[in-house]
Every structure is written in structure tokens, then in C-alpha cells.
């Protein structure tokens, strides 16, 4: 990579790079102020909470890149949580089967969204609103009362550490390196971006629009169910909670935007969303170690979120003609 390549990379990834720097500063501050000192334990706890939101933010990113949105990612995660809590009690092969079944359920849910959006031609925002109600209903059927029976060894292995590195962080890195980076270069992956930036132009250039869009929703379902699986292992129980599903969905949208993905589609990626999710999580932790009064914490969190998304107004200053700001 020579100098101009680096400059080009920096210009194309300005927001994720900036967000990454902000996160690094916040996390270092958190570790410095943290009373128990930097131990593997603190890293594992931080990673478990951060990776959970990061995976849901990743799930949200794919539909957003196509210019759509998936308001059911939280409900799919809760559905996977409830399903996994009934399947992960055994050991050996039954455990592998449980994990596979949970991810398959996520793919199925995402597939349902894909059918609604691509072949049903419904607006994603309203179609996934309806399906999230259906997915939540199924979660209630699977788990009417909170609880669950999870294999302890399996749960602690996947939510612990390997040679000092949190296992959940390794899972997240695996998703980014083994799935996202190769996927982005495939025909379907490029189609996801093309559909999001100009659907008509993508169609005219022979991009298989339906296939790219459908893949985005199905993979979104798989990633959301992976997050649900992780939630099951961290909490070692499950609860069909509409509030949790809503919180996860909305926080995922916020993380996606903070990570530099455009809600209009075509710009952004999973790496930015992961950083966005980490920033959102660290805000809460920072407020805690700064000993902010619990009554003030929600307000600070809200103000920081609002300030972060308002930074999106900066490109407006570059407009020479007011017309440029209207779509």
C-alpha cells in the first residue's frame, strides 16, 4: 500500500476510523478509571456485553446497506434466545444440533422477512414490524415463563477466555474475517451495496437485485440468532421479553448509524457497526465508573446518542447550494 492508497482508504472510511479512535479513547479511559484494575475478568465482561450488541448491529447493517431496514432483529434474537434455552441442555452432538437448529431458525425468520420484502414487495420498515410481532409470539409459545436449562460447561467455555482473549471477541472477529470480508467481495455482497446506492441503476447493470436483497435479510436473521445464542449463554436463561427485543432493535439502529452506515443505503459496513455498538456499550460503563448519579445516567446516554447522530449534519456545511440538501 503506498501513500495515495492509504489516503484513499482513510477518506473512504473516515467515519469508522473516527469512531474507532473515539472508542479507543473511551475504552482506555474506562480501563484507567475502573477500580478493580485491568484483569481478564473485566475484559471478558466488557466483551460479552459489547459483542452481543455488535452482532445485532451487524444483523441490522445488511438490510440497511440495501436501503431497507429490519425492525425484527431484536425479536429474532429473543426468539433464538428462547429456542436455544430449550435446546442447549445436553452435551456432545445434541449441543451441536441445538446450536445448528438455533441458527437455522434465525435463517428461517430472516427468510420470511426476505420473502415479504423481495417477493411480497412490502416496505421493509412496516413488513418487519409485522413479522417482529409474529416472532415475538412464537418466542412466547416456546418459553411462556422465564427460565432455561443450559449446559454450564458449554456456556462458561464460550463466555470465558482463551489464553486471556475473551472468547466472544474471537467469535466476533471470526464473523468479520471469515464471513464479512469475503462476503463483501462476492457478487451478492457487491449487489447489496449496488442495490442500496441506486436500485434502478443496479437493475440496469444486470445485478441480480432479488438475490442480493434476499441474502441480506436471511444473513441478518442468522446474525441476529447468533446474538440470541450468545445471550442465552451469557444469561444462562431466556425470557420472551418484548421490551428487550425493542431495546435491542433500537440500539442496533443507533450503533449502525454511529458506525457510519447510511440509513439511505449503499454506504457503510459491518466493521463500523461493531465499533458503533462498542461505543454505545462503553458510554454506559464510563458513566458508571465516573460515578454519575443513577438518575442522571439515562439523560447523559440520551444526550450523547443525540450528539453522536447530530454529527451527521456536518457534510451539510460543505453544500454550496441549498438544493443539494434536498432529496
Amino acid at each position, binding site marked *: 500500500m503506498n501513500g495515495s492508497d492509504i489516503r484513499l482508504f482513510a477518506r473512504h472510511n473516515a467515519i469508522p476510523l473516527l469512531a474507532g479512535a473515539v472508542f479507543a479513547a473511551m475504552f482506555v479511559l474506562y480501563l484507567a478509571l475502573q477500580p478493580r484494575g485491568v484483569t481478564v475478568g473485566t475484559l471478558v465482561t466488557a466483551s460479552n456485553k459489547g459483542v452481543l450488541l455488535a452482532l445485532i448491529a451487524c444483523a441490522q447493517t445488511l438490510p440497511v446497506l440495501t436501503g431497507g431496514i429490519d425492525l425484527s432483529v431484536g425479536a429474532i434474537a429473543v426468539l433464538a434466545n428462547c429456542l436455544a434455552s430449550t435446546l442447549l441442555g445436553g452435551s456432545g452432538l445434541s449441543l451441536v444440533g441445538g446450536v445448528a437448529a438455533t441458527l437455522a431458525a434465525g435463517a428461517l425468520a430472516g427468510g420470511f422477512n426476505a420473502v415479504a420484502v423481495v417477493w*411480497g414487495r412490502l*416496505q421493509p420498515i*412496516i413488513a418487519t414490524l409485522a413479522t417482529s410481532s409474529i416472532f415475538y409470539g412464537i418466542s412466547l409459545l416456546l418459553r411462556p415463563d422465564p427460565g432455561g436449562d443450559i449446559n454450564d460447561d458449554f456456556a462458561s467455555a464460550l463466555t470465558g477466555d482463551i489464553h486471556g482473549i475473551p472468547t466472544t471477541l474471537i467469535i466476533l472477529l471470526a464473523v468479520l474475517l471469515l464471513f464479512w470480508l469475503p462476503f463483501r467481495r462476492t457478487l451478492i455482497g457487491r449487489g447489496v451495496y449496488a442495490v442500496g446506492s441506486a436500485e434502478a441503476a443496479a437493475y440496469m447493470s444486470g445485478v441480480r437485485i432479488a438475490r442480493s436483497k434476499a441474502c441480506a435479510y436471511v444473513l441478518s436473521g442468522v446474525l441476529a440468532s447468533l446474538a440470541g445464542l450468545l445471550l442465552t449463554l451469557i444469561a444462562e436463561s431466556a425470557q420472551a421479553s418484548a*421490551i428487550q427485543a425493542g431495546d435491542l432493535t433500537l440500539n442496533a439502529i443507533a450503533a449502525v448509524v454511529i458506525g457510519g452506515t447510511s440509513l439511505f443505503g449503499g454506504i457503510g459496513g459491518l466493521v463500523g457497526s461493531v465499533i458503533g455498538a462498542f461505543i454505545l456499550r462503553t458510554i454506559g460503563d464510563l458513566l458508571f465508573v465516573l460515578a454519575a448519579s443513577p438518575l*442522571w445516567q439515562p*439523560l447523559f446516554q*440520551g444526550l450523547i446518542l*443525540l450528539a453522536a447522530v447530530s454529527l*451527521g449534519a456536518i457534510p451539510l456545511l460543505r453544500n454550496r447550494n441549498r438544493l443539494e440538501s434536498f432529496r
Partner: protein
Amino acid sequence: MSGAPSRALATRAALASRIDLPLFASSLCILAILAIGAAFNPSVVSPHYLIQQLQSAAFLGIVAFGAMLVILLGHIDLSVPWTVAAAAMVSTGLAGQGGAGGGGGGLLALPIALAVGAAIGFVNGLGVAYLRIPSMIFTLGVNAVLQGLMVLYTGGSAPPSTAPPIARALSGGHLIPGVANAIPIWALLGVLVTVLLRATPFGRAVYAIGNRERAAYMSGMPVRRVVLGCFTLAGCASALAGLLVTGYAGKAYQGMGDIYLLPAIAAVVLGGTSIMGGRGRTSGTVAGTILIVLLQSMLAVMQMPDAGRQIIYGMVIFVMLLIYGRGHVLRT
């Protein structure tokens, strides 16, 4: 979110169809729900029950009118939950019984609630119209800030004072014998919104902006002021609903607005308003609201467990959308 050609096609198709399919289909669906409900429990078709349903529908319907104004622009207001709660909490806190200014029947509660709603809507409008932040994320941030402010204001619980008499009178009083006041208020607002949308330059600008913002700007419409105005009105609508719900429940409480956000959007869309903006009618929103409220209530009457209720609720919205909410095939 979709490209230009699909929006143009949608407009042409809307012009081509003379009958109002969404209104027709949702009215049929309402009748079907009533018929099924009556088969389970004949008292469902009694005037008493229906008026009770209309009262619940009025709360949702007022929120839905505000949501419709914003959706017609092609935007969305996700700050509804805490706008409802903040207006209710501040107005009962300041003018409720046991509050500081509780005298005079708490008459001040109404202007206070509306002012809170207008202020919140104004901030939303500033962010969306002037800072050009996507409404979905900006209103989400405003909702989070409001939640923080209310936790600070109430100390994380419900305000100690109870609903001011004016809130009780507005939602549960009976100016027309047997009909709760919330219903005529909802009807009156429906007329006002219809006139605003159909007979004023402001209303024409709302549809124009929803169809193509850039063209509206080029034709000299005050685009940013209209967007600001719609968000402000939507804030007022949520605030009024908050005050009425407080009068109905007797108190303002945490999370009181949570149950209105998504059903209001669903009601607007089921009523035939395009979520992309530019197309939709007040009559449809009223039908959509009644449909949602009756569906929820009927599933409760049939003693359906919550899981089944959620699934059927989602499926009905889904099927209704498949009947008339579909986009058009992308062609050259």
C-alpha cells in the same frame, strides 16, 4: 429508501385506481372482526362495548393523526413513547391534584401538555428539517433524551400527583350522554386534519414534499418550515393523547406511551398511507385505528393467550399489507 421510478409508478397507480382500496379493505376487515367476535360473545356488538372501544381508539387515533402528518412527508417519529409520557408527567406534576398549581380544576394542564408536546416536536423538526438528520435516528435520540429528562424529573417513578380534573373531563366526561368526550375530540381533530391536508397550502405542501422534496423546494414551497410544522403538530397530538390517557388512568406513569408507537404506525399504514410519504387520507387512518383497536380487543375477548394474540396481530397486518400495500415491480 426506494428509487425514483418506483415512486413515480406508485403515484401513477394511485391516480389510476378510483376506489379507495385501503379504506374498503380495512372496513371489510373491521366487519369481519366484529362478526367473528359476535360469534364468540354476542355482547360484543352492544353499543356499550363499541363505544368503549371507540374511547380506546380515540387515544391511539389522536397519536395516529400526528404520525400520519409525519409519515406523509416520508419521515417517521419514533419519539412518540416519551412525548406521550413527558407531556403527561409534566402537566400532572405542575397542574395535577396534589401538584404545585393544582387549583382551578388544573385548567393549566392542557396548555402545559400542549406546550411540552410542541417543544418536543419543534426540536424533532429542527433536527430533521434543518440539520437534515434522518428522522428515524434523530427522533430515536430525542426519545432517549426525554426518557433521561423524565427519570430525572420524577426520580425514576411516577409523579406523586394524580390526574388534573380537566384531563379526567376531557377523556371520560360526557358532553353527549353515553359518549366519552375523547370520542368527539378525536372526531373534531379528524375534521381539522382533513381540512389542513386537503384545503390549505400547508397540506398541499405536505403531499408535495412526500412525493418529491426537491421538486417541492424548486416550486418555491417553504419545505423546511412545513417539515418543522408537521413535527410540531405531531408532538402536540402525542401530548394531547398523553393528557387524555392520564385522565383515563388517573395517573401519569413510566412507559405509558410505549404501547402507542408501533400500533399508531401500523394504523396509519393499514389506512393506506404510504410509508414512503406523499399518499394517504385521514379517513383511512381512522379506519386503520379502529381496525387495530378492535383486533386487539377481540383477541382479548376470545381469551386468546398472549402468544397467539401476537402472532394473529402480526399476521393480520401482514395479510392486509399484501392485499394493498405492495410496491411495484422494478422495470426499465
